């Protein structure tokens, strides 16, 4: 199969070119060991299948960044049959720099003269034939890749290429003399391999560190000779021109390009204003620009987390349905528990992130492809640089919960837009400190328990603390683990462009799919592990028997005829409807009264009334109206000492309502017994948890956690918090035997903690501090591993754990010392 490589500057339309050729048949992976994205795909042209390798977008083939090394190695060492250099026709001078370097390597090259529409609208005309001659008779094909124009023609031209002589770029007498001195040595040693000896000499003079190292290993004698020759040249150039060989070569190359430009480019007018410059006057304005930026970020936020929440609800409904289906159709036992609590809950947690990631990537892709993201980095670079980060770090921080309520997973993924490696790693290590949507229930529960009068103030403090913590930690990481100068901020501000739908969709779906494929497997495993930790070893038979006996006693106090209706299959929770929560439905009193007064069968008015109630309360209101309507019957039924007279009372109720009226009456009659069963079930859950490995672990770390004021129950919750932060709330619920606590409605847990002797406001503050800096949830850890490698993922876990423990101990001890 023929292999074609795509090279080109960033923003030259290379990605559009690749998308036009391969469509959705793309394969995205990482180059082994580094974070550079590798994209390839197949295209069919004239019935022939061709493999297309999309090299990273670069400005030159120097060996400073990982992207450049990848691209150069591919061109040097791969079996690519030809290279297509996608060149921005509206920006020819700078784009030719890379083309020239490829031509000097002697790899067969075909130039795609892209964005001819933009060039035309700027009054630029290019003599393609003359350009082809200047580059040594390489094919030059005008294209508009965004609109799929000229793409196939370019590929045809590239496929028909055979070999090309390397282009000779003259570097002036001094450098040429040096090259002439080097070339015979290189040719004699054969060190250049298939590459031209002249190219190797020029690269060496340019200070290419990889070539120098390779040469020192492969041909030490030659390397020593070359070093000597280079030093001689550099001394000479420094004394005469005050520059070194590297600079001189780049200057000469640009000089050569300018002679080409003079011959091939005609401009219709000298001075003109560009639309982009006018837009920038507003969008990067000191005041207006900042306001617009915050508004746009807020809008992206709303889209991601509000609209995403709708989609999440639908997904959650589907997961709940599956859960219910499995619950109803699988035999009880360890396998069912594994499938329900381990597999479905765990994978469900992953799935529930999908809408957020999808919408977030849509937004980011739009900002990136339109050119706005580069402006954001430009405006905020000064602030982030102070902390050793990069202007482009702003987006990951905001998405992760910089304004409380984001998610670190899309945040970590969005660090891809940071091109500087050190700043990128420092960013993705610190974004988990932001207050993601899963930490909010934890804060909300604790604030409700201890600081209900200062809710807003505490939330603001929490936000400030997490930002300060993240930035300070970033600064420290850049001093210690990732020391050294930041990457230069020499960055293009590309002209504003409307992104194409196709480009954005491919971008988005691609990244979302990658997240699933990789995250799904690891998350499933960790999820099962955490489940096993909480579920095993199960309670000994004798203890279970004790709880069963307690239940049997309760069931004995129920009339024999009602026992079947009172117990479910698991024998633990009553199968009766729960009583109406009068507080919850109080706001809907008028609707309930009207509903209860409606004559039977008036479904139209009923539906109209119910439509005025929100989704969450509709069922409760319906039940309350039913209870209101049949109040006398329910009271009479509940009061009957035997079952004999029930039929007589039920006769006064319409046929279709009888079942619900009877079961509600029974719920009232056996309210005390129901409560007892729930208490027994919660006690058993608490004991089971205490008895599990997780419980053992919780106890085992109390010597340490005591310093932070946490008891073993909190410890278990924090271990569970590694799965997902909201699990802290539900695990605390189990540990404090409150049954399943819904993270979004944790009032009972708040009340319980407020009155528990082991808890005081300082404990809550300590837990809040701990939660901010705690180990990222495992979905985030997987994301970090995916983006930066397993080493940094492990570092993040260890470092955050240590940091959170140190800060929590400091908070608790200082607080205790001050008498709180």
């Amino acid at each position, binding site marked *: 199969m023929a292999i074609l490589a795509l090279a080109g500057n960033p923003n030259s339309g290379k990605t559009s070119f690749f998308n036009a050729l391969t469509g959705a048949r793309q394969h995205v992976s990482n180059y082994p060991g580094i974070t550079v994205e590798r994209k390839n795909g197949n295209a069919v042209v004239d019935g022939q299948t061709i493999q297309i390798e999309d090299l990273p977008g670069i*400005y*030159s083939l*120097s060996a*400073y960044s990982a992207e450049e090394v990848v691209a150069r190695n591919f061109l040097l060492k791969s079996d690519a049959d030809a290279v297509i250099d996608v060149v921005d026709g*509206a*920006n*020819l*001078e*700078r784009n030719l*720099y890379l083309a020239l370097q490829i031509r000097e390597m002697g790899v067969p090259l075909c130039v795609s003269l892209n964005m001819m529409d933009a060039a035309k609208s700027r009054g630029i005309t290019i003599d393609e034939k003359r350009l082809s001659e200047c580059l040594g008779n390489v094919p030059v094909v005008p294209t508009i890749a965004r609109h799929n124009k000229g793409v196939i023609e370019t590929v045809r031209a590239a496929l028909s290429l055979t070999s090309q002589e390397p282009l000779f770029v003259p570097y002036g007498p001094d450098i040429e003399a040096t090259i002439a001195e080097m070339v015979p040595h290189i040719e004699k040693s054969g060190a250049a391999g298939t590459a031209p000896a002249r190219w190797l000499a020029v690269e060496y003079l340019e*200070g290419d560190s990889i070539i120098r190292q390779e040469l020192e290993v492969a041909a030490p004698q030659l390397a020593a000779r070359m070093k000597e020759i280079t030093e001689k040249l550099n001394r000479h150039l420094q004394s005469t021109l*005050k*520059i*070194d060989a*590297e*600079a001189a070569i*780049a*200057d000469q190359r*640009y*000089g050569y390009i*300018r002679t080409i430009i003079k011959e091939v480019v005609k401009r219709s007018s000298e001075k003109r204003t560009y639309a*982009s*410059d006018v837009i*920038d*006057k507003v969008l*990067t304005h*000191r*005041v207006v*620009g*900042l306001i617009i930026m915050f508004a746009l970020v807020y809008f992206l936020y709303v889209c991601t987390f509000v609209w995403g929440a709708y989609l999440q609800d639908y997904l959650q409904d589907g997961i709940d349905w599956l859960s219910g289906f499995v619950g109803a159709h699988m035999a009880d036992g360890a396998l069912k528990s594994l499938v329900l609590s381990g597999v479905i809950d765990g994978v469900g947690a992953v799935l529930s992130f999908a809408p957020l990631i999808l919408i977030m990537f849509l937004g980011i892709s739009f900002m990136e492809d339109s050119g706005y993201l*580069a402006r954001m980095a*430009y*405006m*905020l*670079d*000064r*602030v982030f*640089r102070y902390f050793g980060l990069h*202007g482009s770090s702003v987006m990951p921080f905001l998405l992760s919960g910089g304004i409380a309520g984001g998610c670190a997973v899309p945040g970590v993924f969005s660090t891809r837009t940071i091109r500087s490696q050190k700043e990128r790693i420092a960013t993705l290590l610190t974004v988990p400190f932001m207050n993601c949507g899963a930490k909010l229930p934890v804060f909300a529960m604790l604030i409700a328990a201890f600081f209900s009068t200062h809710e807003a103030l505490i939330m603001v403090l929490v936000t400030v603390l997490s930002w300060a913590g993240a930035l300070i930690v970033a600064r420290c990481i850049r001093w210690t683990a990732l020391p050294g100068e930041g*990457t*230069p*901020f*020499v*960055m*293009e*501000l*590309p*002209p504003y462009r409307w992104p194409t739908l196709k480009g954005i969709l491919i971008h988005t779906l691609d990244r979302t799919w990658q997240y699933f494929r990789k995250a799904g497997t690891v998350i499933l495993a960790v999820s099962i592990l955490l489940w096993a930790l909480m579920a095993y070893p199960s309670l000994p038979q004798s203890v279970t028997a004790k709880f069963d006996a307690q239940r049997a006693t309760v069931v004995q106090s129920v009339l024999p005829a009602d026992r079947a209706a009172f117990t479910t299959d698991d024998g633990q929770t009553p199968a009766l409807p729960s009583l109406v929560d009068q507080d919850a439905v109080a706001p809907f009193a008028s609707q309930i009264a009207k509903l209860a007064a409606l004559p039977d069968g008036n479904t139209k008015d009923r539906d109209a009334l119910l439509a005025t109630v929100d989704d969450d309360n509709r069922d409760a209101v319906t039940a309350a109206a039913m209870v209101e309507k049949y109040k006398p019957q329910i009271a009479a039924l509940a009061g009957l000492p035997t079952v004999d007279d029930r039929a007589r009372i039920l006769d006064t109720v319409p046929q279709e309502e009888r079942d619900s009226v009877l079961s509600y009456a029974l719920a009232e009659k056996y309210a005390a017994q129901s409560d007892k069963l729930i208490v027994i079930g919660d006690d058993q859950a608490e004991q089971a948890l205490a008895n599990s490995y997780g419980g053992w672990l919780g106890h085992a770390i109390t010597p340490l956690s005591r310093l932070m004021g946490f008891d073993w129950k909190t410890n278990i919750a924090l271990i569970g918090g590694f799965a997902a932060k909201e699990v802290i709330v539900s695990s605390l619920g189990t540990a404090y035997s409150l049954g399943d606590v819904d993270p979004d409605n944790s009032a009972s847990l708040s009340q319980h903690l407020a009155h528990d002797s082991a808890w005081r406001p300082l404990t809550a503050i300590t837990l809040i501090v701990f939660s901010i800096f705690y180990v990222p949830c495992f979905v985030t850890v997987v994301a970090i591993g995916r983006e930066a490698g397993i080493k940094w993922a492990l570092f993040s876990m260890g470092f955050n754990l240590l940091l959170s423990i140190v800060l929590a101990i400091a908070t608790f001890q200082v607080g205790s010392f001050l008498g709180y």
Partner: protein
Amino acid sequence: MIISMRQMKVGEEGVISAVNASGELGRRIREMGLVPGTSLSVQGKAPLRDPVAVRLTDFVMSLRNGEADHIEVEVNR
């Protein structure tokens, strides 16, 4: 007169006379086309006066003040 690029005012035009940077920074500056003889104008500065946006003939780029220090520009003042 020749000044460092940092000292250029917004809207001011000039021609690069020298680039005094080597290594990666030097390469990054040169590969973007900031070589002696290139004419440019300062298009704007970020809200905190750093980095600076520079227009070359065909495109706009930004660089930090610390990086602009390495570039000498001939301006008409």
